[in-house]
């Protein structure tokens, strides 16, 4: 064990600002990325379901470039 007490641990030999500033920002960014990735999945599914209902299941299957009834443009990705 490297530390005499928890307060010594949090103090990091006086380098608390630099050490915890590094770890804090890193884990915050990773958590943010996870939230964004999971939210993107939800958003994608909701948006595609709405799009399928809007165009009808059969024309959703065909490609937009085949002519005939044009498939409505997708809402832009975020």
């Amino acid at each position: 064990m490297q530390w005499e007490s928890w307060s010594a641990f949090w103090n990091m030999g006086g380098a608390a600002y630099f050490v915890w500033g590094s770890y804090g920002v890193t884990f915050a960014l990773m958590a943010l990325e996870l939230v964004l990735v999971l939210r993107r999945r939800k958003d994608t599914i909701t948006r595609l379901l709405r799009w399928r209902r809007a165009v009808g299941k059969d024309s959703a299957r065909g490609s937009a470039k085949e002519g005939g009834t044009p498939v409505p443009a997708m809402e832009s990705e975020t």
Partner: protein
Amino acid sequence: MNSPERSRSLFRFAAPHNFYPLAGRLAPWFATAALVLTVAGLWLGFFVAPTDATQGEVYRVIFIHVPAAWMSMFVYLVMAFWSAVGLVMNTRLSFIMSQALAPTGAMFCFVALWTGALWGKPTWGAYWVWDARLTSQLLLLFLYFGFIALTRAIEDPRRADRAGAIIALVGAVNVPIIYFSVQWWNTLHQGASVSLNKAPSMATTMLLGMLVMAIAAWMYTIAVVLWRARSMILERERHTEWVGAVLEREAQGGRA
């Protein structure tokens, strides 16, 4: 076309409708491994590894700084690899992988710069210096941003894929420049602590903590990239029947 030999081969996972469920099954395992290894790595880094004789405690930034810097370079090389595969073989999944990797690579690149700045201040007396290592790493961050901005700005996915692939390939030249910058130029940044041809210049427990954290970063990256790629696949394959079936299952609250 679907002979047994063919469907058993690994290459069938190059097809988005095979890759999608595989990615969904694998990602939670990689995420769990990332969590376990991060806890182990932090324990090694904070409670087992000794205080550094010259730097004191601030050196403990190394346990994220080095893994993040490695990831930022490696992810870019993997992006370039998938871009090359996509350009040569014209496989849709390759471009998706390359674009799914970019945000995570950019995140680790920023983390490497951020933790480097916080480490530089107490050890060098400056958050930032324009030395070769730092400048080329900053360029890597801009390459990531450029790749992400370009692939999102072009509406036609095929053109976006190709334009992005070219940035990824051209920018890959920067990665060896970053890696060897500490040897080629006289930099403030220290040389590699770990290399293939000499014994590591650090205590074993420090090295072990750093390696465990590096593998954790790997596992995290794989999990996040697989999840992101799944959304991108649904988006791109939305005209297909199998995506229709996946969406219907999701609408009924099922798992795909």
